């Protein structure tokens, strides 16, 4: 089978199917579920049954329904935050590396400072100053995450910016944006892509953590990370309730990363190395 002119290997297909199913569920979720998003229809942690395929959550809501609704919120927010954080992080990271000197120092030390401020304080300040809407949550996560992307993007660009072709571009008198876009970005894309897959998954959990503090996703909306947290106590007694949302995150993460791996292998496999496979 081919996709856009490429032939994905088996694992890539697994990833593509996982991601597609999740996206479909996220979009069409409300039409798929037997119960309302926050309808309590059973007892605490009731085991799976014909009526509740995955059992009930901590206040007797249908786990499957919550998972389906959760897909929408979780994937949506995680996707937007990750893209945003990469745009911010890569731009600043590249600028720092290519320009070097005081720009680099300024940006790098600024990132040190931001990373050093305890997240809790940061979140509380954001809450206090900007309120708790979902866009605020998205921007907060994107901003905080971009500091980590910055470190990586800078390190990559540092490595590349001393290479001949970048020097040559400089000597040709190309502008910094041209260098960043045409010389550095393409050559740094593999590690950045790989990082994207992971950051995307971290953000699932980050969303849940900040929601718990009152930032962003509000009850009764479901988010997977929050569902794991709310049901976590059950695992100590061998009940499966928290496993389902954890599994949902895991499967989505694996799916996204399998797709990422495939994309990487399309991009970064010219000749010789492949011969070895």
């Amino acid at each position, binding site marked *: 089978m081919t996709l856009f002119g490429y032939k994905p290997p088996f694992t890539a297909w697994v990833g593509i199917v996982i991601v597609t199913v999740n996206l479909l569920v996220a979009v069409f979720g409300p039409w798929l579920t037997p119960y309302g998003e926050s309808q309590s229809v059973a007892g605490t942690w009731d085991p799976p049954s014909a009526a509740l395929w995955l059992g009930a959550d901590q206040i007797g809501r249908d786990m499957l329904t919550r998972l389906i609704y959760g897909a929408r919120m979780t994937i949506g927010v995680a996707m937007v935050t990750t893209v945003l954080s990469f745009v911010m992080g890569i731009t600043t990271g590249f600028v720092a590396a290519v320009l070097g000197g005081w720009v680099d120092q300024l940006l790098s030390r600024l990132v040190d400072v931001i990373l050093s401020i305890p997240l809790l304080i940061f979140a509380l300040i954001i809450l206090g100053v900007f309120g708790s809407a979902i866009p605020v949550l998205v921007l907060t996560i994107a901003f905080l995450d971009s500091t980590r992307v910055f470190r990586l993007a800078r390190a990559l660009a540092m490595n590349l910016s001393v290479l001949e072709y970048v020097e040559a571009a400089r000597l040709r008198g190309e502008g910094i944006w041209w260098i960043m876009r045409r010389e550095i970005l393409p050559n740094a894309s593999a590690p950045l892509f790989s990082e994207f897959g*992971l950051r995307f998954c971290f953000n699932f959990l980050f969303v849940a953590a900040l929601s718990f503090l009152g930032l962003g996703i509000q009850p009764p909306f479901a988010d997977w990370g929050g569902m794991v*947290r709310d049901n976590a106590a059950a695992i100590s007694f061998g009940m499966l309730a928290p496993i389902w949302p954890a599994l949902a995150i895991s499967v989505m993460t694996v799916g996204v990363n399998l797709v990422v791996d495939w994309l990487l292998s399309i991009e970064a496999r010219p000749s*010789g190395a492949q011969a070895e496979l």
Partner: protein
Amino acid sequence: MFRGLSTACSCRFLGVGSFGCWPYLVGAFGKVLKLIATRALLGLATLFAVSVLIFVCTQILPGDVATAVLGQSATKETLAAFRKELGLDVPAYIRFFTWLWRALHGDLGVALTNQRVIIDEIRPRFANTMFLAGYAALIAVPLAVGLGVVAAIREGRPIDRISNILTLMTISVPEFFVGYVLIAIFTVEFGLFPSLATVDADTSFLGRIYVTTLPAVTLTLLVTAHMLRMTRTSVLSVMSSQYIEMAFLKGLTRGRVVAHHALPNAAAPIITVVALNLAYLVVGVVVVEAVFTYPGIGQLMVDAVSKRDVPVIQACGLIFAAVFVGLNTLADILAILVNPRLRHRR
């Protein structure tokens, strides 16, 4: 995609990238020394900026230590009495400079809530935090980088796929949940390790190793995937370089090419990600501390924030900042040392 390579035709592969030649290293040391000196100065500036920012933040946050401690029983009179007792009735900037002056003299002050000497309070906790971070790092970094290299060598083979998917699954689960699952398996089911990582001054080294095994494994599971994937991807991304092709043409095995040619040139992003994860092991483990009841510095910080105990927050913030600055500097130095071109940049 790799159109830049067209101009990068020179003899990069000859340098073989790694810790090769002495003249390079001598030049590198000069550069590294200068970098360390600059970074030390900038580090101090960063610490100052952090302390200012944290102080400002704590002032923006609603409530102070008096309202936080007294809680519901706060009335106008009890609040006033408490604030006076703590010296909170003087203006904020004076309090900051008083604090700064003392901190410059090595006195971090006493906790507002219970008047304990902060240095004494933090020292054992910081030691505990570093112990756990070190333990976890000793398992995680070799494991992650090793597996990452193996995965790159055996790209597409079962070991690559399995390590990839397993680590992805562990990383996508909230950290406390990883802890709970490990406890359910190793404490409840098999009785191998305690779920309480209680340590105190009398605990022996081996005793510490034993009780902190579960938290260390939890942390390992949390950080391995990130470092593993970055190692694998970075190595693979340089595998398409012409000097690697050249190495293959020379008839070297794939393992040798990866270890001696690709890895050193792929080191910069790996080092960065390792540094980020090490920093996480030090400053981000508050939840793991809570799950295993481990007396580290994270819990202290969280409590200090909720109680608005500004001197304690400041002290913890400075420690965390120092860790970040230190690790980032180390990462930058290592990146320079392993990449010959960075040693001679401009």
